């Protein structure tokens, strides 16, 4: 009994229950169509950018910051790969590396302004999202392909229809069933989990979020750590950009530009405090997958149009944050009663 109560205190456990409940409801509603592994995995692949970036934004939000520029970096990475490969004529892998490097630099610049100049993260990343999406557009202007069209024709599709080379990253299958992006996501989950929950770096990230002043008094270089979380996020965004480009075979400057709010939703729903200090990779992953499944299941089982999915997800977010706030107040009330 006690252990269940203890578990209920963990947000991840509640999320897991909700996740199972969600699958249950969809499963009952339309078992034949819903339980298809390939479709479920495909739905995760479609949402992979948000899932991946949310992992890294978790770090940022645990330090008490916010990052709304990551979605602009998806487009920047994508168009860079396209232009470097198709117009400059670089090897595709060199192009990928350079594009990722540029994205990382962008993250470092914003991180520097936030950590070392003390500008609010919201403002810097707002400016950053304008600047980097603008840069992406400018870079797309260097290409002979019109910006709206997107650069396509990336290598390589084998004669038998299977994907190799660059496209393998987006479309390939491991063991014939697992999409490569999902596999990469799994690896990133593991890496982020270890980094956040098992290393000294991760501990510092948490401590800075709880009390930046006390962290400084413990000799932690909080500025550097804060900056590094924005760099991490930009790397995550660039990975998402690579996978998305490879997946849809199109390098466009505005890929992912509408993802910002979805990313934040996933992180917050995952239990990360927007004031910092609390959060977990597991929570973010569960929340991301919950949204994925919802986006997959609602149209499939209840005939809800894909474009109106924001409504249930938005309402879910509202219920969750208000519920959490009320639960906190109750705890405070109980504490008070006990004291008296």
């Amino acid at each position, binding site marked *: 009994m006690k252990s269940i109560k203890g578990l209920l205190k963990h947000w991840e456990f509640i999320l897991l229950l909700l996740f199972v409940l969600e699958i249950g409801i969809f499963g009952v509603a339309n078992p034949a169509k819903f339980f298809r592994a390939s479709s479920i995995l495909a739905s995760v692949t479609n949402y992979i950018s948000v899932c991946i970036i949310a992992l890294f934004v978790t770090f940022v939000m645990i330090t008490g910051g916010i990052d709304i520029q990551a979605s602009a970096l998806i487009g920047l990475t994508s168009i860079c790969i396209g232009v470097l490969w198709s117009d400059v004529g670089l090897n595709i892998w060199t192009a990928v590396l350079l594009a990722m490097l540029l994205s990382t630099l962008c993250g470092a610049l914003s991180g520097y302004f936030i950590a070392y100049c003390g500008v609010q993260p919201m403002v810097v990343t707002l400016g950053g999202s304008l600047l980097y999406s603008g840069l992406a557009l400018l870079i797309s202007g260097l290409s002979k392909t019109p910006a709206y069209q997107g650069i396509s024709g990336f290598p390589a599709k084998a004669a038998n229809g299977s994907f190799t080379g660059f496209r393998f990253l987006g479309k390939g299958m491991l063991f014939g069933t697992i999409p490569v992006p999902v596999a990469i996501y799994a690896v990133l989950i593991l890496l982020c989990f*270890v980094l956040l929950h*098992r*290393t*000294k*770096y*991760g*501990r*510092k990230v*948490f*401590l800075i979020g*709880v*009390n930046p*002043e*006390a*962290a*400084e*008094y*413990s*000799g*932690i*270089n909080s500025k550097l750590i804060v900056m590094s979380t924005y760099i991490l996020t930009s790397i995550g965004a660039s990975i998402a950009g690579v996978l998305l480009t490879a997946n849809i075979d199109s390098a466009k400057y505005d890929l992912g530009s509408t993802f910002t709010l979805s990313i934040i939703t996933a992180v917050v729903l995952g239990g990360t405090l927007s004031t910092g*200090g*609390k959060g977990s990779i597991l929570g973010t992953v569960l929340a991301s997958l919950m949204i994925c499944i919802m986006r997959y299941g609602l149209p499939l089982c209840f005939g809800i149009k894909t474009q109106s999915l924001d409504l249930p997800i938005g309402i879910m977010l509202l219920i969750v944050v208000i519920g959490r706030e009320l639960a906190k107040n109750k705890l405070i009330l109980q504490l008070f009663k006990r*004291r008296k």
Partner: protein
Amino acid sequence: MKETTAMDHEKDQAVPGLSNSLLSVKGICKTFGSNAVLKGIDLDLRSGEVIALIGGNGAGKSTLMKIIMGIYQADSGEIYVAGEKTELVNPSVALSKGIYMVPQEPMLFPNMTVEENVLMGFSESSSELKKRLSEKVKELNWNVNLQRKASTLSIAEQQLVEILRGMMREARILILDEPTSALTFDEVQSLFKVIRNFGKKGIGIIYITHRLNEVFEITTHVSIMKDGMITVNGPVSDFTKEDLVNGLLPPNLEKKTEERQEEKAFERGNLDPVLVVDNLSGYGFSHINFSLYPGEILGIAGLVGAGRTELVSTIYGRDQVLSGTVKLSGKDITGLSTRKVLEAGINYVPEDRHYQGLFKISSISANTSSALLNGPKLGRFFLNRKKEDEIAKSYADDFRTKIVGLNDEIGSLSGGNQQKVIIARSLSTSPKVVILDEPTRGIDAAARGDVYNIIHRLKRSGVAVLLVSSDMEEIEELADRAIIMFQGRITGTFSREELTQDRLTSASFGFKGEKEVSE
């Protein structure tokens, strides 16, 4: 000069009758948790009086003032305003009754002009208000541009703005909470002029201060608060400075001194000092010299605002050094970053536990180990949680910290146990020098005893301790030697034999110590 001022006030006071009581507080008690802060306070303020309220840190002065302002509610007792029994349930009731408090840290709107700040919250027409404001400014004889932004004002000017607010609300009862703590000499003089003027107009003032000189210079009555009670009370002319110093001392002085002698005295022998501070100046202190030996406890006494915390936190790399040097075991560590100072072998238990010490929603283990994250002790890259828990556990056992589980949030512990965890953190890096800044503030007697034991054990193991405390009793009990700071300078050094509370007290209130620093 000072005597005449006091005489003037007696004359002023004679003009209004005795019956014109502005504020009468009877039997006020207030308890926070298990800590009785006020134990039956009686205080009367009549028209034209300036009552000096003095007492050590934690005597309950600010709690009493917050009750009068309606910010806190008393557990028992009555408050009469102008002879009428009043329930001060919130600040706006107090404001409407003509009570106004000028807090130590002014509560202005930094981005607004002086005028906007003063007039905020009034509902009358603005032209009328502005007229009244300019009258009040004239009355105050303050030459200020009303359009200046509050953030550009000095603390003194901000306090004047607060006083203006009180005047605009036609306050009859004005509470000044250590108004001179951040003022320069000239600013103090002009503030005193204003206060004398108020007295003449029949406004009653409660004047909280730590500076005994000011008591004689500006106030008509004096009340000493100690441990939640007013122990001494009367017209200022009845007292000498010595009386006040004696009144501030704790009652069980003799006994404590005897007990203290039992602790083994520190033998410096022919050891080399571990920490040498040479002519160090920084923001909030200047020309500081002292040496600290292994196994020695050096007390730094003085009042809040004397520059002690600024001194030790600058040594710890939190602020810029202006001149001078700090050497740790012969190595120059002047102006290094906190991280480097920590590595060199100094650790610090900060004064403000909540703001600078605690990771409130983190576990006890994480709180204990936070200073070890830079070193190799907990692993190079991965965090060795087993090791971390071991360390936290061993300190918890060692210090008799009452915890349920190592993974519980530290915020769930009592203040004393929180402090033990923070001290454990500061020892976890095996420092040569530990700086303890008000280590027993706000913790109960039992925990205090434990903390004292920890400090004694540190001493025995050869760690040098720098003990910053406003609690003279604490310094007397623990320190082998003490330096007194006053307004950013060392004004006295006392060896163990000379260390008595009355000497410490008078020196920290700005009187000459019996042994001056020989320059």
